[in-house]
């Protein structure tokens, strides 16, 4: 083989394994699910492909509430993650001494060593009606005498926020950490107060991290079902819970597949709008 041919081959060798993996485990199942979503039938007699687009409109009509709830919970959790995560990431990137920085990053990653189901189950223990937290909340008047935390919207959103916080903090930290400190100095040299320097320099340069962190939080949060299942009741059920039960318990595969595609489409459109809102030019430029 000539040197030139071998050089042409290199890119394919590099992306080949990834492409193959995605083809086998993502593209083919996705196409299959698209196919399934257009079938009709029932679990007893089996399903036939019938171009059943009606499944989509029915799914939207029937589960509108869960869709909106998923988006609402995921958006709330994403904002909470940003509000909680940004100061922490900022401190870690700009103020913390090296040992402190390593400690914080370790603590942020540490929960990954425990399965998220297990962690969410522990939240049940923390939030349960006779627990310490509920008792204190009642003492402080934050909860009524028969008020509870478990099986409420608050518990589900708190659980999602907790579970996805690292996905917000890490990209934020990375984008903040690579901001040249001298740019902030230059801003203060040019008559910007600390707050103004933050608004006009640090924040715009942290946008790629905010973007990445929000996506990494919002997208999986939209499809999450563990938190709603373990910390909520059917009244807090999200679209993930519906899809899961359609697939595993009701075995209504077409509706489950259709719901998945509706969610996916919504997320893709949402991401595109979000990117435009933050300004893609700024994103690509400041990433350089």
């Amino acid at each position: 083989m000539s040197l030139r041919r071998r050089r042409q081959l290199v890119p394919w060798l590099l992306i080949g394994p990834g492409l193959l993996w995605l083809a086998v485990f993502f593209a083919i199942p996705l196409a299959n699910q698209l196919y399934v979503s257009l079938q009709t039938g029932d679990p007893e007699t089996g399903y036939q492909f019938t171009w059943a687009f009606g499944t989509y409109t029915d799914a939207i009509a029937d589960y509108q509430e869960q869709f909106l709830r998923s988006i609402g919970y995921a958006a709330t959790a994403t904002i909470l993650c940003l509000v909680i995560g940004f100061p922490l990431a900022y401190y870690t990137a700009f103020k913390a001494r090296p040992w402190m920085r390593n400690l914080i990053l370790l603590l942020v990653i540490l929960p990954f060593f425990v399965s998220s189901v297990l962690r969410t189950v522990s939240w049940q223990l923390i939030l349960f009606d006779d627990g310490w937290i509920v008792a204190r909340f009642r003492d402080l008047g934050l909860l009524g005498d028969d008020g509870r935390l478990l099986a409420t919207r608050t518990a589900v959103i708190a659980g999602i926020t907790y579970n996805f916080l690292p996905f917000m903090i890490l990209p934020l930290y990375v984008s903040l950490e690579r901001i040249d400190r001298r740019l902030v100095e230059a801003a203060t040299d040019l008559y910007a107060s600390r707050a103004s320097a933050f608004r006009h320099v640090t924040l715009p340069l942290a946008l790629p991290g905010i973007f990445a962190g929000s996506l990494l939080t919002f997208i999986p949060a939209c499809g999450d079902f563990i938190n709603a299942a373990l910390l909520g009741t059917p009244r807090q059920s999200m679209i993930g819970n519906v899809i899961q039960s359609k697939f595993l318990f009701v075995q209504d595969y077409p509706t489950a597949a259709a719901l998945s595609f509706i969610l996916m489409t919504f997320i893709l459109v949402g991401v595109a709008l979000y990117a435009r809102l933050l300004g893609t030019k700024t994103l690509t430029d400041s990433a350089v």
Partner: protein
Amino acid sequence: MPEVESDVRLEGVTKRFGDHVAVDALDLEIERGAFFAMLGPSGCGKTTTLRMIGGFEEPTSGRVHLGGEDVTDRPPFRRDVNTVFQSYALFPHLTVEKNIAFGLERQKLGKAEVKQRVAEALDMVQLGSFGARRPSELSGGQQQRVALARALVNRPRALLLDEPLGALDLRLRKELQLELKRLQRELGITFVHVTHDQEEAMSMADTIAVMREGRIDQAGSATDLYETPRTEFVASFLGISNFVDGRVIGADGDVASVETHDGAQLRLPAARLDAHGDVRIGVRPEKVQLAEPGGDVPSGWNVLRGQVIVAAFLGVSIQYLIRAAGGEELTVIAPNRDGTAPDVFTVGRDVLLTWNPDFTFVVEKEAPT
């Protein structure tokens, strides 16, 4: 109260980082409209001094004054000085225009004025058509000009330049040196320039402060520092120097005499001697003329005997290394007048080193470390 306040004044300013004393009880006064350079090797405290003037570092003790006002406790954004940073520190997310407008916008100037002043600043640094570009689309020299415009557009009391040309290649550096000098003349703004490049400092600055270990070794014009350095450090940092140790044996009017350890007598202006006993005297290599033993030496000139060890033809000059009778190795640089190194000064020849006593200077001996 002095009638005219100096633009920048440091009073006993000390900066410690942990145990390390970066700047040591520094007193400094810079006149309005001066081009002032702080010159020294890395770690001498020059950048720390500049950063304390800019407000990026707080002095451990001492006061910083700008235009007669004590600004020691003021943050950078409340000081009317602007900085050109070593790496330019241009905002990557903003266009050139927005970079330059940054300071004006933070000062809440009107849109029309901002626009006009930005356009003027761009013209001033000859980047009129680059306003819409991003810093990453510019060459190093262009980025440097943007940094300059971004600072000068604010019409600061003083412009602080932290190794502004360090990242550029030699040709561009020379070009920008001239441009900086021109801008400073035209604008009449005080420039405080930090550099480790002696040539850069000498070609631009009216006053150079040579710094070492957090202190100013000597300050003066380039000529002062070069012709009459007062410390061995200054003499060596600005060009090549020859040193000979001796003992003061007396003065005759304006001329003092020093006897070297091997018995030669050297003369120098008496005013340069403020010590008795042992002294170290020096002379610049290009001030020394070589002569054949027994040849003509102008009367009153200093003479040392020596032997040529190396003669290197450098094109514009010929550089000799000569071992003096007393054992010192001295450098002599002779202009290339004949197109070749003269036969009489080839390696191994005995020669006389002669120079006018006016070119002899006296340096403080380095304390043995």
